[in-house]
């Protein structure tokens, strides 16, 4: 954010990768890709490649963390060292800790945790290749993996970001736009309930720009939701593995 770039990010309504301002990158979602996990999802979102796995509900250790009223939803967002241009030091850092926290809070809105006291539902998200928008892609994948695991849920959480590049509100920024744009608004949204469960913002938005960005991100989430539902249906059409 806020870096300097010689060429503009938007030329005659076209973005660096040829998209229109309200156009998303291509998204491919596949449910049930891992053998050992209770539920899983592989997701490609532009150049982002993410795999999410769900284990549980299962017994929670250490025992002092157990809650006799509900299950604990433990999320871990992790980037592979080779997923970014400069190698990332393996292990959790401050950024991934914060992302894990906000993703966990977003998912807790939809999972019936009260059905499984004293247990844990583990959600692991591995970013294999990153190209901006990985927290939204991870939340989208985690949501599908939870449904694939058969964890009782009220709905899926769909996620997408809007941003600001060259003074214009754009949907779903890629790396160039994220680096040199003027703002980012990632969102997690439940379409049927019109509820925002994840929202962060950084950059410079006027009130008017924010309103437009919020609407743009919601429209993106609605499209993502359709793709999530399709991925889950496709798995069962194929007779998926058990």
């Amino acid at each position, binding site marked *: 954010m806020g870096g300097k770039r010689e060429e503009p990010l938007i030329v005659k309504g076209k973005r660096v990768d040829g998209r229109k301002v309200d156009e998303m990158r291509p998204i491919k979602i596949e449910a049930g890709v891992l053998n050992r996990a209770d539920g899983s999802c592989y997701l490609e979102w532009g150049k982002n490649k993410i795999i999410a796995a769900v284990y549980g509900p299962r017994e929670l250790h250490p025992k002092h963390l157990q809650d006799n*009223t509900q299950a604990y939803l433990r999320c871990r967002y992790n980037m592979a060292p080779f997923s970014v241009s400069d190698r990332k030091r393996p292990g959790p850092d401050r950024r991934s*800790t914060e992302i894990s926290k*906000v993703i966990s809070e977003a998912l807790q*809105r939809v999972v019936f945790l009260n059905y499984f006291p004293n247990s844990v539902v583990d959600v692991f998200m591995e970013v294999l290749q990153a190209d901006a928008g990985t927290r939204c892609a991870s939340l989208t994948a985690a949501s599908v993996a939870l449904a694939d695991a058969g964890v009782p849920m009220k709905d899926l959480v769909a996620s997408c970001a809007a941003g600001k590049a060259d003074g214009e509100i754009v949907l779903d920024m890629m790396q160039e736009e994220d680096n040199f744009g003027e703002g980012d608004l990632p969102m997690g949204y439940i379409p049927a309930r*019109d*509820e*925002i469960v*994840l929202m962060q913002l950084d950059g*410079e938005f006027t*009130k008017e720009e924010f309103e437009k960005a919020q609407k743009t991100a919601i429209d993106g989430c609605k499209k993502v939701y359709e793709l999530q539902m399709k991925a889950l249906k496709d798995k069962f059409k194929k007779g998926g593995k058990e």
Partner: protein
Amino acid sequence: MNIDKELKRHFIGRLIDNNRRIDGRGFDDFRELNIETGLISDKAEGSSMVKLGNTEVLCGIKLVPGEPWSDRPNEGILMTGAELVPIASPNFETGRPGEEAIELARVVDRGIRESHMVDMEKLAIVEGEKVWMVFVDIHVINHDGNLLDASSIAAVSALKNTYVPKFEDNEVVRGEKDRDLPVVKLPISCTFAKINKGIMIDPILDEEFAMDARLTVTTSGKEIHAMQKGETGAFTPAEVSELVSKAFGKHKELVKKIK
């Protein structure tokens, strides 16, 4: 199970449903805000103590020469950290910062960084080789809710009262002022808590135990620079829009108190 949460949720929730807050404030009223600067003036280049009701946060600023990032060779570096030290609450433990402390530091950092409050380009010592690293460290003294706003106000007030020390013969002359830290904007954060259908500003600790969702909005006069939604509840888009407008209004009111 969190006992505090279970016990307080019912009581506070019922009050909110009757349009009342536990301490009698209006839903859009901040607690009394008191800012003192320069408490650690012998050793820190800037400092401030913020009292927001019974919440007390101390922020200290240290300036240390260091190497710039390779992609920003002529800019200073800003780093924000927060410690929830065990003096402030029976729920805080010693050890490495947990996710609550990390989130706190990162949200405060985002407001300062994204608003370009400090003109980083004026913090180069030798271009491309040596720049000032500005360390913002937040120390929570007493936790009675809304650490986010108290910390953010403490960080902004401390930076506003920070000096750049003299740098001679490749060494820092500690305690001797060269100039003021170049501060160009004052971002103010506003945190809202949602309990049942009620949304209130500046929650106290009891309200935080009861809250379903939390939203922090950091604005300068004309723009929004940082937002963070927390907790497991949700906001509707219409609620978010309204809270953003309220945060702009509060900026006008609170910015006057920063000296």
